[in-house]
């Protein structure tokens, strides 16, 4: 079994230690590097390839989003996960736009971190109803002529406004709508008449369309080929 190399940047020492413990306890994971600020992790990332990067958004020296963007450009094969406090899902849309493909809530459920990382490596992407609702509004606002100056759209997309947003397909809209109304991926699949893995693919594609900044077809293909069985 390939051991997944994990790097971490988190300014809270306790949190950093808990994560290190969880990663160390899992035989399939290895903590390659742990940093407390953006500068350190960016320096390290320049020379060391890694499979998964865990990023806290509220770093003391640079915004976590900058770390995500830089990592996506220097290491396109690296999957970025956001460490977020509970209830900060709204801001996570920005992280997805920067290139993150998953998130972990710092609400005492770190024990599930290994599961989450494995899930992410297997091509699964979590999406909470709040995020689905945010994304739905974001795309509805984009496609609505004239665009409403919705606060969440403005705050959610400070980087992608200059780039022509990729349009969602009607199926992707449907997935977002059902997820935002509380249906699980399995239930969504049943309602849409597709398998749960197809729903998962839709979700991943939606995240991919958010990743307007660094997205390139080659990277996307590499991810598909490398991560999907």
């Amino acid at each position, binding site marked *: 079994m390939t051991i997944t190399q994990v790097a971490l940047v988190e300014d809270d020492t306790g949190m950093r230690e808990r994560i290190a413990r969880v990663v160390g306890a899992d035989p399939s994971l290895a903590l390659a590097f742990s940093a407390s600020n953006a500068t350190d992790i960016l320096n390290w990332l320049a020379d060391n390839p890694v499979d998964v990067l865990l990023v806290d958004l509220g770093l003391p020296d640079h915004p976590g989003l900058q770390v995500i963007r830089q990592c996506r450009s220097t290491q396109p094969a690296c999957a970025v996960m956001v460490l977020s406090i509970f*209830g900060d899902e*709204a801001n996570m849309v920005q992280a997805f736009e920067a290139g993150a493909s998953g998130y972990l809530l710092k609400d*005492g459920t770190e024990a599930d971190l290994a599961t989450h990382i494995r899930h992410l490596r297997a091509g699964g992407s979590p999406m909470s*109803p*709040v995020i689905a609702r*945010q994304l739905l509004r974001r795309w509805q606002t984009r496609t609505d002529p004239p665009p409403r100056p919705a606060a969440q759209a403005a705050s959610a997309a400070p980087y992608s406004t200059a780039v022509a947003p990729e349009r969602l397909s009607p199926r992707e809209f449907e997935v977002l709508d059902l997820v*935002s*109304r*509380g249906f699980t991926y399995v239930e969504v699949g049943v309602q849409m008449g597709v398998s749960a893995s197809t729903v998962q693919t839709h979700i991943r594609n939606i995240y991919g369309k958010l990743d307007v900044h660094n997205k390139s077809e080659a990277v996307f293909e590499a991810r598909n080929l490398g991560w999907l069985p």
Partner: protein
Amino acid sequence: MCTTNRKQCSRPATWAGFPSVRRLLFAVLWLLAFIGPAQAATGRMPDAMDVRSAEATLEPDGLPAQVRQVQLPFRWDHEFPGRGGKASYRIDLPAAAVPAGGPAALLLSGAGNQMAIWFNGALVATFGTLDDPGYDAAKGNQLVPVAAALHRRDGQPQQLLIQTTMQRQRGGGLASIRYGDEASLTPLYRAQQSWRNTSAIVYAVSLLLMGGLAGGLWLRQRDALYGCFALAALSGVARNLDRVWPEVPVPWPLWGAVVAVCYAGHIGLIARFVLLVLDRNPPWLVRSIYGALALSVTLACASFALALPTLWTTGLVILQAISIVCLPYVVHGALVARRRIAGVLMAAGTLAILAGAHDLLLVRMGLFGGAYYTLTPHAMFFFVMILAGLVVERYSRTVADYSALNANLAARVAEREEQLRGAFETMRLQQQEQAVLLERQRIMREIHDGVGSQLVGLLNVVTQATPDRSVVEEHVKLALDEMRMAVDSLQPTHDDLPTVLATLRYRLQPRLDAAGIELVWNVALIPAVAPFAAQAALQLQRILLEAFTNVLKHAAATRIVMQVSWHGDETPPMVRIVLTDNGRGLPAAPAADRPMGHGIANMRSRAQAIGARLHIETADAQAGGTRVLLDWPCALP
């Protein structure tokens, strides 16, 4: 007998009486009135003689004829006031006066009213038909060329006979005769005629135009000043027309009365106009002006009707007097109040009064040697220019006032806008502060009531001698749930009911999965409701959380069905949430299970707080289970 006068005299009138006063008056008025061509021409004229006297045969109507030597200018109306008649004048022109070179000519002025001229027994010219009042030759100058063949060559004087017929009060007579070289008299004649005609026509047209303009202004603005000037100007037209129009189609003396009435109106209204311009209108003076005007008009009519020229002279004296009475006000305005317009009016008014005095005393009464040319029309023209200046001034001032007003208004509007913006900003800030305060209070209350009470409970458990580990864990989980509820209520999508419910599921799903409870999620599309209050969202979440927690803790169920439906056709529109489990069902005696009862009481009070109806009932009589039914009426946006 005739006398010759080769002296280069500027006027046919004699300079008797008060020559220095006369010259001064003359100089001031005529310089200012741009009068000069005729005078300048006379000054340069070398080869002509003025006839100073004539042997006249005078036949006034109703009086015996008389033959006598008369001095020129001869005024018929002075000799025979109020009478018409005939007169013929014999004049011997000395042989020496016959121009040596070119053809000779006669230049006559103020001759008539109708006239026939004989030179050495030959008729050389007629002006009008004798005894026919349709033509008035006395209004203009007449140039009569005299053929060389008519002249006597024997050194005898040339015999000139002028036959005239006069109508009463028409200014007839024989003012002057000049005899000389036609080549030198023609330019003089032309200059005089053109000056006389041009000035009269210019004045008449100006008065018409300005009178019309003032009339138009009066129609639009109803300003007495304009109305007064319009009448004054239009009434002044008749007099100027009369000066150059020998064949007026109105019979004499009716035309004389018309011209006199108009003239009276002209003078009187100009006096009134002056007061209006000054905006000094003492009632007694205004009344006096109108009184004088009415009186002089009456006198004019009476004068021509009764053939009494003295009456019209009296009328003119009254007009002159009233004009002089007005002068102090103008002078006061000019010198004391220092008003520029008053200064201009003072100049024009003084000139007009001097001109009036000149016309009255010299032309009308023939005092101080008499004069034939009236000056009043020239002086009155200044008032036309004053009105024009006044209109321009007022217009400019109005434009300036308007732009100043505009600027002022714009500034005030900007100021008000600024104030409004400030007030609005203040209000917005206050509202914002108020909203923040309310939200803060709500969050504080929620933390206190939710997480706080859970932590207090936890403290009670852990301070016991042997705290039960599972109870502690339960309390911690509940506290975490409370904390998540509170945080979820702050999500930007908290106003979206399906997302609120979905979030609840998202939080609970791991615990349900762990407990092996299947959740059937049946949430219908719910339209956007009125801004979903955070408070209501939280209460709904709490009620449902309580319900789910009860199932998890007490029901021992394996399946929960969550049904949310929208009833938009009800009034008010309603959201129905039905939560059904297949567990043990409600306990027979709620009091026996205290936490359950406490939880249900909480649910009820929370439902009441958001205006919802809560029913908790047994789901199925046989299979058991519990159904929690929540009807929440909500307003559409």
